[in-house]
């Protein structure tokens, strides 16, 4: 056989196996992480995790009730502030300022904020909210999360509104609908699944965020619903428990980690199902 042909085939086979190896290598690590997480997390989950508050040092009972509730509250308020803002901003980019100079600047800055280190957001809120207000508070944590939510929602909103076919808008305008109604009644409705997808993805993103909460909401050993004080939350509780010397705390940390991961995965899968619905239409 032609030697050039042989060497080309050999190279091809080598590269194919290297790529297969890379895929196996990557998938193995990720499978290992999930396996340890489920193995240790399931061992740590019991009824008390949901009904009791975080234990004092050395104690061997207690749960994560205050942290779970705190996380839910802070995530909801963060998304509640960030999502509408992002939605309107994305609307402007997609509907009003499509060909503006301003729009391209905003889009560029938004893309950078989208991947900016989250600990920087924490420093920002610390300087802008925590210092002027004179102390750590759950509200500052909510705002930090909102700042992370905004760019995600802006991006998806703009993309999703961009997918709404123009003839729909033109038909509505031809019937005499003013611009804002065309957007709210026609474009939003046509893109609804996509817009919800964006909000879900943003929720998934902030549900496990730890760094921006470390010095905004801090954490709290006790149950608290007061937004002006520190509030317990899962990520920071996990952060504190992992580095503790107590076996029971580490077990709780694994249980909390599993809860967060399951929530994030569920939100992501939900977003994906909604997204698929949009495509099949």
């Amino acid at each position: 056989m032609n030697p050039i042909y042989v060497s080309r085939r050999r190279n091809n086979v080598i590269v194919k196996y290297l790529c297969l190896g890379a895929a196996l290598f990557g998938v193995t690590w990720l499978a290992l992480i999930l396996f340890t997480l489920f193995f240790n997390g399931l061992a740590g989950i019991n009824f008390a995790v949901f009904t009791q508050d975080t234990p004092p040092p050395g104690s061997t009972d207690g749960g994560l009730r205050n942290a779970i509730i705190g996380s839910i509250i802070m995530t909801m308020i963060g998304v509640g502030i960030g999502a509408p803002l992002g939605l309107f901003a994305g609307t402007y980019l997609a509907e009003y300022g499509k060909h503006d100079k301003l729009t391209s600047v905003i889009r560029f800055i938004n893309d950078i904020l989208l991947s900016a280190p989250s600990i920087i957001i924490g420093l920002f809120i610390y300087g802008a909210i925590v210092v002027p207000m004179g102390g750590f508070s759950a509200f500052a944590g909510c705002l930090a999360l909102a700042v992370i939510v905004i760019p995600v929602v802006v991006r998806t909103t703009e993309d999703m509104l961009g997918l709404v076919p123009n003839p729909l808008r033109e038909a509505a305008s031809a019937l005499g609908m003013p611009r804002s109604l065309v957007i709210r009644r026609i474009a939003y409705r046509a893109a609804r699944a996509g817009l919800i997808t964006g909000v879900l993805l943003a929720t998934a993103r902030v549900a496990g965020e730890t760094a921006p909460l470390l010095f905004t909401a801090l954490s709290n050993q006790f149950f608290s619903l007061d937004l002006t004080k520190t509030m317990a939350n899962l990520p920071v509780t996990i952060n504190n428990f992992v580095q503790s010397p107590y076996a029971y705390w580490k077990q709780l940390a694994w249980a909390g980690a599993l809860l967060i991961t399951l929530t994030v995965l569920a939100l992501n899968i939900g977003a994906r199902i909604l997204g698929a619905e949009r495509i099949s239409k």
Partner: protein
Amino acid sequence: MAVESDVMEAAGPYDRARALGAFKFGDVTFYWITRACAISVLLILGGIILSLIIGAWPAIREYGAAFLWTQRWAPSADPPVLGALGPVYGTLVTSVIAMMIAIPVGLGIAVFLTEICPLWLRRPIGLAIELLAGIPSIIYGMWGFFVLGPFLANNFQPFMISVFDGVPVLGTIFAGPPSYLSLFNASLILAIMVLPFITAISVDVFKTVPPVLKEAAYGVGCTTWEVVRNVVIPYTRVGVIGGIMLALGRALGETMAVTFIIGNSFKIQSSIFAPGTTISAAIASEFAESDGLHQSGLILLGLLLFVLTFFVLAAARLMLMRLEQKAGN
């Protein structure tokens, strides 16, 4: 019909004016609300930069540019001596090692997914990788702390140290003693974390190659590897580099995945198995208990990190935009 139109005309002018007025008011209000929200995105960026500069100002005035090349970090000395060299070094080293591991593997997986893998396997593997990109970084950090650190310290590190013992340069890079907390452990965790990003972006970018180009290459008898090397990679080079820079931006700023496992030591050591620190790890572990000049120094570190990632991310976005334009034409 006639009656109806009479009624409408009678009620017409007044209602019509009112409705038009309401429409107009709603229209203008909605426009300005969306515009204000869009501009608030710029205000957030401005706010971040401004608050970092204000917070860092005392440290900038105290240390000036020497902050960048001072290695000593002694916040409790009187007066405190602070230098960014250790964390900056740690940030760059961990990111570079992480990218050295993650780029070949990530691109390999992307090639596997787009060219080699049987069709029925593509969706599940692609989906798994995208879902893994969404797992919070603290989970990676925990896993590194409890599982990967001990494993590396007991198995991988002693092996590497004995292999390279006595070899000129490599001997000092892979020097003992093995440690649970080290720059290398942090790098490996970072690599595992950015892997899904690189793969997901590369797969997206590889999909922008027009099928006609690939079919033509296969048609003249190219092997899969030749198609990838001579058609796919050249066509998507800008986009792949953009994706890699995006992943680098994440690696540079990643906090929770490395904080547990890096050791938080500000001393620069030649061995990558020695403890170190990164900018974000230093901020995460010291900020809550800091005050005065120490806190200002940490904010200055944050400002450095923000400037660094800003340029990396801006470059990444510009490159990805160039590819999008190409795909659009």
